[in-house]
């Protein structure tokens, strides 16, 4: 550039013209792309309108119909989703979205029940105790876990895990019982180990060396299962659940979906929670520790409250992902539109319903519009949840900057 001759007026004007043109193009393109992205919500809203304000002879669908499946719906067809069923002339169409919304929320709730403790525990451990080297490896590993396609997780959950669990209910119950005492036992034993052993198995690497330990614990639970079944569940857990508690057991049930989706959602919750925890200005933690608090006390009393908005937003993001996840629910849930509290029964979610039924629903029909309404509901829900999370996160970041100068 230095040795080129000084630009003449013409060349300068050309350059400036080109620059203005490029800026205009970038502006137009950028606005166009962003508008196209934002058009998604608009499109769904516009397509759904005719459901409520029909133009022709078709009758509007009342919110009541969407909730319970019609005003005059008798008990048998209340809260039913069967939009393609052939109806007797006097029957109201069974188009209640309630069981689908219920299924969606139930699956998401179970996913969060599994993902949130795991993710928060992992985030706490990695921000408190974990050695720096392990942490720098753990993050990409969990990112890989997040990237595992839903169809693979759903396949393993629906076709491998679900049949296995159905045959080994007692083993699963035993494993669940041992999951909490397992690490505690490891901690107890660890504190009794001679010092050189403890040097070899530091707490900073516990996330890694507890893996074989947990595998051992799970193996022990398989071995303990018959005993547990005999002592606590009259010898047969399945019969116990069905007769004593009156629970139906489906092979593909809400708990399986929750476990699979918890597995899928956990990494994103972890990443955000870890960000929030490690973003807490270190001056706060150092102050607490200088006053004599242990690391755990510091974490519990100082760091966690400071980071709680960030953790809230992490959980929100996880909820958004769990609500919209399609393939896992589709493959692991059995897709029966039920409204029960029983976690061992099947469910059907909005997203899975769209995936199954939309290709068959002709464009413009009521069924099509109902499915678009379901999509709109998903869109609005996830968009709101994510916006909330993002706003909380932005405010939190500002607060950290005030507190500790972004240390």
């Amino acid at each position, binding site marked *: 550039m230095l040795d080129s001759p000084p630009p003449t007026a013409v060349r300068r004007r050309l350059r400036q013209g080109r620059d203005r043109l490029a800026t205009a193009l970038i502006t137009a393109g950028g606005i166009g792309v962003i508008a196209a992205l934002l058009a998604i919500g608009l499109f*769904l809203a516009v397509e759904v309108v005719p459901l409520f304000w029909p133009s022709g002879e078709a009758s509007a669908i009342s919110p009541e119909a969407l909730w319970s499946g019609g005003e005059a719906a008798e008990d048998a067809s209340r809260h039913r989703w069967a939009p393609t069923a052939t109806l007797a002339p006097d029957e109201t169409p069974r188009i209640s979205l309630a069981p689908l919304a219920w299924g969606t929320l139930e699956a998401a709730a179970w996913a969060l029940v599994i993902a949130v403790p795991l993710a928060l525990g992992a985030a706490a451990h990695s921000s408190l105790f974990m050695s720096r080297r392990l942490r720098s490896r753990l993050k990409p590993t969990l990112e890989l876990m997040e990237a595992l396609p839903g169809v693979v997780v759903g396949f393993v959950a629906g076709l491998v895990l679900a049949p296995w669990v159905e045959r080994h209910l007692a083993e699963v119950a035993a494993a669940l019982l041992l999951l909490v005492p397992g690490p505690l036992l490891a901690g107890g034993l660890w504190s009794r180990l001679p010092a050189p052993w403890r040097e070899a198995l530091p707490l900073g690497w516990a996330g890694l060396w507890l893996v074989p330990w947990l595998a051992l614990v799970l193996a022990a639970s398989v071995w303990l299962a018959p005993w547990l079944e005999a002592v606590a569940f009259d010898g047969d857990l399945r019969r116990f659940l069905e007769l004593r508690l009156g629970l139906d057991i489906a092979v593909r049930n809400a708990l399986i979906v929750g476990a699979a989706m918890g597995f899928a959602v956990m990494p994103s919750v972890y990443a955000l929670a870890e960000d929030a925890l490690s973003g807490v200005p270190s001056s706060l933690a150092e102050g607490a520790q200088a006053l004599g608090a242990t690391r755990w006390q510091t974490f519990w009393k100082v760091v966690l409250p400071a980071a709680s908005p960030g953790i809230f937003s992490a959980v929100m993001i996880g909820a958004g992902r769990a609500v919209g996840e399609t393939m896992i629910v589709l493959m692991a849930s059995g897709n029966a539109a039920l409204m029960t509290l029983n976690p061992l029964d099947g469910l059907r979610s909005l997203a899975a319903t769209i995936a199954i039924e*939309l290709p068959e629903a002709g464009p413009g029909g009521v069924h099509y519009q109902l499915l678009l309404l379901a999509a709109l509901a998903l869109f609005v829900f996830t968009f709101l949840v994510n916006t909330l999370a993002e706003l909380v996160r932005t405010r939190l970041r500002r607060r950290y900057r005030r507190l500790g100068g972004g240390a």
Partner: protein
Amino acid sequence: MRGGVTKTAASRRLRLPRGEGAGAWLCAGSVALSLLALLALLVLLTVRGLGHFWPSPVALVTLEDGRQLAGEGVREVPLADGDGLERLYRTGNRDLDGERWAWVRVSAIEAVGYPADLVVVERRRWGRAIGHLVAVQGAGGERLEGEAAWTALEARLAELGTLRDARDRLREEVILPLAGRRDDEAAARELEAAHARLRELQAAMAGGRLELATADGGTLTVPLAQALGAYRPNAMSPLDRLAAWGEGVWRFLSEGPRAANTAGGVWPAIFGTVLMVMLMSLLVTPFGVLAAIYLNEVAHQGRLTRLVRIAVRNLAGVPSIVYGVFGLGVFVYGIGGRLDSWFFEAALPSPTFGTGGLLWASLTLALLTLPVVIVATEEGLARIPDQQREGALALGATRLEMLSRVVLPMAAPAMLTGVILAVARAAGEVAPLMLVGVAKLAPQVPVDGDFPFLHLERKFMHLGYHIFDAAFHGGDVQAAMPLVYATALLLVLVILVLNLTAIFLRHHLSTRHGALTRR
């Protein structure tokens, strides 16, 4: 918790600090549990996915009642009534008894042998045939028995393989391109010649059959043209097995599916996935980068821009199925339907673009991954210090020159990371594709010798959908499982490699540009 502490301090440290007890270990346990779950999933996929191709020994099982069956032991389950075990054998000869699987009570088994001369024949129809080789009859009618039969069979099958390859090549490279130009004199003559050659090849492949004595005492005759391969699993050395395993993996990767997606390979699905992802990244890269440049470099950094930025970020969290719905409503029914009524009226009412296809799938996934690319590129742009921009402008560069010579080259690795992450996300996404163009079985790949070579309106196969379809819609799920495992492993490997590349790039980027980071 480092070494180098004095003895007294170390001995004080011996006791676990009381407040740090339970919580710390539970947290460590949750890390371990997550890793264990991930590890278990990967190991399961690897073992089952790769193990399927290993030629396991075929057992000849003699039952107490004298019946015999031949097959590979798959697994054992406790009997429903609680006493003893039941073992599942994967058998063959479905055309004789209609079964591919046999459950046998372990206590009812008298003897299990592994005779070296058991032959497994892979067939085009009816799956595998298992039995003792009795005789091979050549095309000319000569009949060979004993060990000579086996050598003759091997030679003939190898010959058939080359003939089959030649036929497929002829079909794809000569006949299909010519078939499009029927009115051309010279082409018609060439086509005639090619058809003659094809008939010749087919005649060379016809004839001959082999006879198997099955385990239950029957005889099974297989026309040699139907046989795809034959091996004697019990007579193989470990090296032979390894070679057979490699060949099995290769055939899985390079062949098309057979038997309603429960056998054969996944080549069309690999092809479709890669093609769709490539188209998608061609679409998403320029638009994503454009939007990111606009947001970060051109737009006035006010309240509105901040809101738009948050909105774009949030669109990354909108469920993929919603994008699929948008793609179906706008691209397929909206734009596609309009295109059909303008340009393809002759073909109506059967839709050309008004149904799911490669183009619409790529566009939908491009839209889905747009936020990923925008966010990653914006992060890269924000990391470039303002001094760089100001320096360029101070030296007299226009904004375009500043962007294209200084800012974009520095942000290139970030863009690449974004695109790779987008590709990884798109490769694993199945739900939107179910709405906008994936097919259970696409007879024609979207690329061929016909003008315009790339058929954007065609449906295509996809690895992820192949998993879903084979696992849930196949007739014999049990038989499809090994292939589903293998396909899942393949998909996971592709995605892992893409993600590792992105992670590596990002790491590389942050160490290289660490000094430049805007604080």
